[in-house]
């Protein structure tokens, strides 16, 4: 479900803005680290969970406004270099601020321990994350499908010139989309922190997975991103149970296998 969340955010950014966002993983990591600091300062997990992703969204806003905006006319190579540079900067700043050693972060007291599901014993916090991520995915989907602004956004994925000809400020739309994508990455990071702990490398690992999700689901295809996220998550969990070392490699193997059969991705049309 977390993968779906990451893929959804990245799909929004790449789909609408048409840029390869290599900073998406770094935004994810910043979300996780901000959560730890916010919880430390505010002393409350729930407040932290609200504040940290908003911080990432704000960062996204700033990045779009200060840099990405100038690069829409430039080629993918320069956009890539820019977001890749940003990823390096954010990653190193994380090390400078929070240190190179991994941090473990406990879930809030309410969500510690596990629940007996009858057939298996499952950690409470993981259940919470699943529900949260599911709700967020649904909320994003509802926003895009049922609200006026969401419809404009989907129109932006289909045809940018047309949307701007209709008198809609496409640049504002881009900014909002980038911030929303960043928010989703941030909250995915914040939710992950208590499960896997934090390390400076977490962003890069997630970036690869997010790309796989988008490549499988199709650019700007939001349902595709959700389905691909679930597929990847399940495949990884199954393999991890039998052969832990290969659990990361299997994500990419699944992608390669799918692309062999369907080069356009699971739901891709382009």
């Amino acid at each position, binding site marked *: 479900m977390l993968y779906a969340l990451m893929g959804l955010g990245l799909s929004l950014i*790449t789909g609408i803005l048409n840029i390869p966002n290599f900073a998406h993983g770094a935004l994810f990591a910043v979300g996780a680290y901000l959560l730890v600091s916010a919880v430390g300062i505010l002393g409350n997990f729930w407040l932290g969970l609200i504040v940290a992703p908003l911080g990432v969204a704000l960062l996204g806003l700033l990045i779009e406004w200060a840099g990405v905006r100038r690069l829409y006319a430039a080629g*993918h*190579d320069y*956009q*890539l270099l820019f977001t890749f540079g940003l990823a390096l900067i954010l990653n190193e700043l994380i090390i400078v601020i929070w240190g190179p050693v991994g941090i473990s972060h406990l879930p809030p007291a309410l969500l510690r321990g596990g629940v007996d599901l009858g057939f298996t014993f499952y950690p409470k916090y993981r259940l919470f994350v699943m529900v949260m991520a599911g709700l967020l995915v649904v909320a994003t989907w509802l926003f895009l499908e049922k609200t006026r602004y969401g419809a404009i956004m989907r129109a932006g994925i289909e045809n940018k010139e047309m949307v701007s000809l209709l008198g809609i400020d496409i640049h504002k739309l881009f900014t909002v989309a980038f911030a929303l994508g960043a928010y989703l990455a941030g909250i995915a990071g914040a939710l992950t922190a208590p499960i896997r702990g934090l390390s400076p490398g977490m962003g890069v690992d997630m970036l690869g997975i997010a790309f796989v999700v988008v490549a499988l689901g199709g650019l700007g295809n939001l349902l595709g991103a959700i389905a691909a996220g679930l597929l990847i998550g399940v495949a990884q969990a199954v393999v991890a149970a039998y052969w832990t070392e*290969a659990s990361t490699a299997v994500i990419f193997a699944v992608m390669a296998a799918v692309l*062999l059969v369907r*080069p356009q991705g699971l739901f891709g049309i382009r």
Partner: protein
Amino acid sequence: MRTLILIALSILLLPLVVRPAIATEIWIFAIFGLGLNLLLGYTGMLSFGQSTFFGSAAYVAGWLLKHYGINVLAALGIGVGVGALSALLVGYLCVQRSGLYFIMLTFALNQLFYFIAYQWTTVTGGEDGMPGIPRPVLLGLDFQDPLMYYAFVVVLFLASLWLMKRIVESPLGKILQAIRENEVRAEAVGYHVPRFKLLAFVLAGAFSGLAGVLYAMLFGIVPLEAIGFVFSGNVVFATLIGGSGSLYGPIIGSFVFIWLSESVSTMWARWPLLLGVAFVIVVLFLRGGVVEAWTRFWTWRSSKQTG
């Protein structure tokens, strides 16, 4: 001609200015960049996974050098072969897509190879890298002597440059440039575009493989970073700052990049931060690279003289 004199001069002067190891690394990285530029500059394919082929070749050839004591030329041949073969595998999956998908796929498959190298510790040494790669004697030439190895790398670099020049000036090179300019039209004229893209990808992989083996022998170790995505990003960056529109762009880029990173990395452990800042600055203010800035400077100067 002027370019040739410049290259000859820099080959001679470089080892006097910097340590031989760095001078050698510059030429190795230039070979790596030449390969990428065939894709980026001549075919218009932005590959963000070139370290896949660089690293794979370095690991395989390094392993054989270390455990089976193979000949240097055999190691180079194997490196080129492994680079081309891995590029064939990756390219087959990627060339059918273009634009953003292509970038993301090359990156994702780069991550696949990275995680295999990371987990397969018995062979690759995982995070510690694969140390103990020898530089065997070839025809009485002792490559333990840094300058001798430098000369060897330079000869291979010149051969690569000559070969690349032949490739881009051949009919094949022209077809690739046609694909860059207008893919639909190239297809309409009758060229099977995916096949030519794949061919370019494999050729670039072969150059990357050669660079990978030379790199492994230079440092005696294959670090995990050699197959990591930052390495892929670095070669894109070096090619872009040099100017991807020119055959010689990657060479200049490699100079600037290796020299800067080597001098800064010894000063500060967090130097990738500066690297990131450099990326951002180049993108926002210096698009077009050194070669273009240089030509812009010359046209500006000559317009001043005439006007």
